[in-house]
């Protein structure tokens, strides 16, 4: 028994489940403290796992010692460890922020966040399609629950729309899983990858189509993004941060796994399709963010745009470039920067009492730490150096030009310029000269709220200077 519990793999799933359940029983006060300590331990587990995976490239664990197909196989490679590290690194500061930010809604925040993280961690460690489906469903339900914790009418509407999208997405995914199981009698990704060759029968094509469509819907890739801005822009700030930084990445990860694994043999001629949608997402999301009047809506549309970059790597697979690494770097940089930006936006909205971008003008200059957090996150989102976002975009342009996809390079550069318009739209407010309305009282915000956002933003910048460990971690992953 002890040996089964000695691996960090299991604890990454168990810990959030345990503290989520306890938090539900104990209530927000002690539950929050439990949650925060649990998150600290999870971060430690993720780091331990990274240390273990780095030399071996893959670590597996059979839960309870039962063999497949009866037991559940947990697999961790560089790809999953990177996402696990990102998840824990973002959720700890966000939870600290939430502890200070949320007044009502704490009661639901801790249990739901625990289940959400158990789902996300479980997803990254799953080695078979059915578990992926289960974790996707768990993530979706917990996320919808989190959106409604605010309790306002707009949030409920947004949550219902989100629920619908999420259920349709997982439904499509489950249909695909069933089709594949019908054809091959297994749901193991490893086995399916070797069974499905380049000559896929119609049923496999159909499975691939519904699964990819379902995942794109969950990832909110243009034009499936309709549910994202109201849900992410309307939820309380720490929840927006979790949703934008982590939740949409989970379904992208599954897409990546399938694309590089079971479907690799026959989907590559269609790689331009996600990339095309991604390009449109970058342009549309950027323009909508520029037009947005509410600050958090702007940040949410920025997520729509940034998700577009993730799928631009699809036509670059197999061209000898670091396409997968670029995608993961972009996912990590965006995760850190967007969490920082949503938290900073939440602080600005809370301090000024106004949700409008123009409404925070009176406050921006008076919260320098928060403003720096917003600005530094913005630097990474615009893809300006030095930042993780810059490295990802530079390498993306490099890889695209290497195979003559000039249009990808143009889209990436244009997206950066669009981002600079909406980021500076907010930043410039800090420098506005003293006006009459300057004397409006500042609602108190805690130092924890200011500094957690700042730390996340700084890590997005530091990632631009210390990305080599990430590349080494991802070296052995097939792609």
């Amino acid at each position, binding site marked *: 028994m002890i040996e089964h519990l000695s691996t960090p793999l299991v604890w990454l799933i168990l810990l959030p489940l345990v503290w989520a359940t306890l938090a539900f029983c104990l209530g927000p006060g002690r539950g929050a403290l439990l949650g925060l300590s649990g998150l600290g331990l999870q971060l430690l587990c993720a780091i331990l796992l990274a240390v273990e995976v780095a030399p071996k490239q893959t670590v597996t664990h059979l839960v309870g010692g039962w063999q497949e197909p009866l037991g559940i196989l947990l697999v961790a490679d560089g790809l999953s460890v990177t996402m696990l590290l990102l998840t824990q690194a973002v959720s700890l500061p966000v939870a600290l922020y939430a502890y200070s930010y949320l007044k009502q809604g704490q009661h639901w925040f801790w249990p739901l966040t625990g289940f959400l993280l158990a789902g996300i961690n479980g997803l990254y460690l799953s080695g078979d399609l059915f578990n992926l489906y289960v974790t996707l469903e768990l993530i979706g339900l917990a996320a919808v629950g989190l959106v409604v914790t605010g309790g306002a009418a707009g949030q409920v509407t947004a949550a219902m729309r989100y629920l619908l999208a999420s259920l349709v997405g997982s439904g499509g995914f489950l249909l695909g899983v069933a089709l594949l199981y019908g054809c091959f009698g297994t749901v193991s990704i490893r086995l399916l990858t070797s069974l499905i060759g380049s000559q896929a029968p119609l049923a496999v094509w159909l499975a691939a189509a519904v699964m990819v469509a379902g995942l794109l819907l969950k990832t909110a890739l243009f034009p499936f993004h309709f549910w994202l801005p109201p849900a992410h822009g309307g939820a309380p700030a720490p929840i927006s941060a979790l949703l934008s930084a982590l939740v949409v990445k989970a379904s992208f990860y599954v897409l990546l796994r399938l694309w590089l694994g079971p479907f690799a043999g026959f989907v590559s001629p269609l790689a331009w399709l996600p990339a095309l949608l991604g390009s449109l997402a970058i342009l549309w999301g950027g323009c909508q963010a520029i037009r947005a009047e509410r600050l958090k809506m702007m940040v949410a549309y920025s997520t729509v745009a940034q998700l577009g970059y993730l799928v631009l790597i699809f036509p670059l697979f197999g061209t000898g470039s670091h396409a997968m690494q670029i995608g993961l770097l972009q996912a990590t940089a965006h995760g850190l920067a967007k969490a920082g930006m949503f938290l900073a936006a939440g602080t600005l909205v809370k301090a000024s009492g106004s949700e409008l971008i123009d409404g925070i003008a009176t406050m921006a200059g008076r919260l320098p730490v928060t403003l720096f957090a917003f600005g530094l996150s913005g630097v990474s989102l615009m893809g300006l150096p030095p930042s993780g976002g810059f490295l990802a975009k530079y390498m993306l342009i*490099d890889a695209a*030009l290497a195979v003559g996809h000039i249009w990808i390079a143009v889209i990436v550069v244009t997206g950066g310029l669009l981002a600079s318009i909406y980021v500076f739209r907010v930043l410039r407010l800090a420098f506005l000269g003293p006006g009459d309305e300057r004397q409006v009282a500042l609602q108190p915000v805690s130092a924890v709220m200011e500094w957690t956002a700042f730390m996340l933003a700084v890590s997005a910048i530091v990632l631009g200077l210390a*990305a080599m460990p990430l590349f080494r971690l991802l070296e052995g992953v097939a792609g």
Partner: protein
Amino acid sequence: MSYNELLPLLVIASSLLPGFIIFILPERQIVLRTMFNLLGAVTKLWLIGLLLVGVTAGEQYGFRYFLAPNMELVFKADALALLFVSLSASLWLLTTLYAIGYLEHAPHRSRFFGFFSLCVTATMGIAMAGNLLTFFIFYELLTLATFPLIVHRGTPQAMRGGTVYLAYTLFGGALLLIGIVWLNQMTGQTEFTQGGILAATDGISRTHLKLVFLLLIAGVGVKAAIVPLHGWLPQAMVAPAPVSALLHAVAVVKAGAFGVVRIVYEIYGIEFAQSLGLLLPLAVAAAVTILWGSLRALSQGDLKRRLAFSTISQVSYIVLGVGIFGTAGTVGGLVHLVHQGIMKITLFFCAGNYAETLGIHRVDEMDGAGRRMPVTSLAFSIGALGMMGAPLTAGAVSKSWLKTGALAAQMPWAIWVLSASSLLNMAYFLPILYRLWLKPLPAAWPHEEIPVNGVRETHWLLLLPPLVTAVATVAASTFSDAWISPLTFARMIMGIEYHTPP
């Protein structure tokens, strides 16, 4: 890490760390802030002194670090880097002193000096960048660090100036980025190398190389304010005087001009660029800019605006020097990189003094100011005479080398352009000197803020920096053959780039 790797990093850290500390310091900690500022500036000068001694003795200083596979951060403190680094560091010290006096009692000083230090850090990085990627990183950092300085006052004009500045520079940055990646695709590396990296490579389409050249030069040309990419510069002069001084003399426009130098000499190679036929168009663009800037300066009533258009014109002397193929032209361009900085910063310091002390912003308000502020006006006159290329000033040295170069390269039209520019310079500077010294004192100054105190016409911190740079303007010409003069250094660099002994 060895000493020779550490030294360039310390040069960068000596302004980066004070910058971080200043951001954290509370607004009222004036003494501590000033201390960190000056400590950083003096340390930097000392470190650069060490570098200068080492480089003239033939030492190699550099640092390399992998950001990602195939993406290397490279610093290299070579002679060309030191030319720019020493200029920036000396003028940073002076400008910091000036800014302390200028911003006394002004709000948001922590923010101001913090970004000021970042701005200088970016300039150091640009100067010591060892490849195009590193250059680009600091080039963009400079954009980010200068924006808060330009909009510092927060007035509607300042906000407009800042927005225009961002629009131009971010767009230029995007062009530069594409150019860099494209070039990297074709050559596999973009390290700055004496004599260039392209001459040795075959099988690269010449058309592509020309297109990349266009992208790169357009990218750096935005900051160098080459016509028609100059629109941001007159708008950005709404910034406080120390910022304008730094922007026009060492930071932004100089970063652009320095980029042109690095790209032409150490990426394309001057001889290869000539064989591609790229130098003539560059020289023509510079000539157009020189004349256009001077012509527009004529009609500006606002003193700082007039100086801004004058900068557009003067910075392109450097580009012209690069575009003139031949050793003398190179020396002229490189030496003007330093000389223009010293002269233009003098003028902006003085313009700031008039504005702060007497409330003078327009040229027609300057009547008789020479009698009220003789020291400032003397410094201003020396700077202006230098710009015209009068004998015994730094400007004369630059112009004579440029003209010799143009003659040797058989580009007589360039001589005409330079002469015409000198005439235009006179046309917009002499009336100011006439007003300063020969017009009678007005009944009252527009807004006299600092009263006369004995022989002290204004705050001593405002007086000292322009005086030093004015003296330097004369010294750069009088002692142009000294071992440490900008001219000696420029000739040394020329020797390296042309593979000929100096």
